[in-house]
């Protein structure tokens, strides 16, 4: 699967911060972010779900896996973070299917992702677990 690219915009960071109820000015107020020494608006750590999301969405839609997305439940998620992401960063995410297993008629898939910024620093690593329930 080719790596997916995501350009972090201020609008996307603000919209995300508001959607998850964050009030830290680092995510919302450019002046506050800059006076705290950041180059631009800071993305909350869980914004990793946004910049790595397209790679994950494409991986789940791999026609070879033939996953019924309507029967899918997010089973678990792990992120490890490196340097902070700020608006203006260009993030590249590579993802691979690490594990497939079956328990109690349910299928478990685990993908591992790695996201890098434009300086080739790893800004996060993700482990994405989904469960596909059988259609009744």
């Amino acid at each position, binding site marked *: 699967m080719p790596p997916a690219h995501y350009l972090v915009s201020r609008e996307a960071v603000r919209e995300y911060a508001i959607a998850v109820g964050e009030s830290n000015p680092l995510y919302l107020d450019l002046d506050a972010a800059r006076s705290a020494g950041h180059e631009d608006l800071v993305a909350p750590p869980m914004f990793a779900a946004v910049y790595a*999301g397209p790679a994950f969405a494409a991986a789940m839609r791999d026609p070879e896996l033939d996953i019924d997305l309507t029967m899918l439940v997010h089973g678990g998620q792990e992120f490890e973070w490196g340097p902070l992401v700020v608006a203006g960063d260009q993030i590249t995410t590579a993802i691979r299917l690490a594990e497939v297993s079956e328990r109690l008629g349910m299928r478990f898939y685990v993908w591992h992702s790695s996201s890098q910024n434009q300086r080739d620093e790893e800004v996060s690593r993700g482990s994405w677990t989904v469960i596909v329930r059988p259609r009744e």
Partner: protein
Amino acid sequence: MTPLEPGSELAMLRVTPDRAVTERYASASGDANPIHLDEAFAKSVGLPGRILHGLYTMALVARAQTDAAGGPEKLKRLDVTFRGVGLPEHEITITSTVTERHGERLIVTATAKQQDKAIIRNAVAELESG
């Protein structure tokens, strides 16, 4: 801020997601799966109704950590298992306890509960305390 040590409880976070929260999160994240947006569809696939995005609930757990630790750069790792489905318009409480310290790194265990059920249990966070 009181120093965090094993046994410390982080400040509890209480959030009642309003009915539009799944629409805002879908728009912000790009995850527009109808199980989060369409009541009838969600019920047709055996869910109690529109459910919260798991990653939204995880973001609340993350917020409890970054607020307590002093900023986004302090959160180095977060690992969660989604246990049940979260629903809009019911209060979620996030509780977090420091369990270990390794040098400057704190290990925290956190739970997200809604209507007395854990929707995220045994979440593990690593925080930089320095």
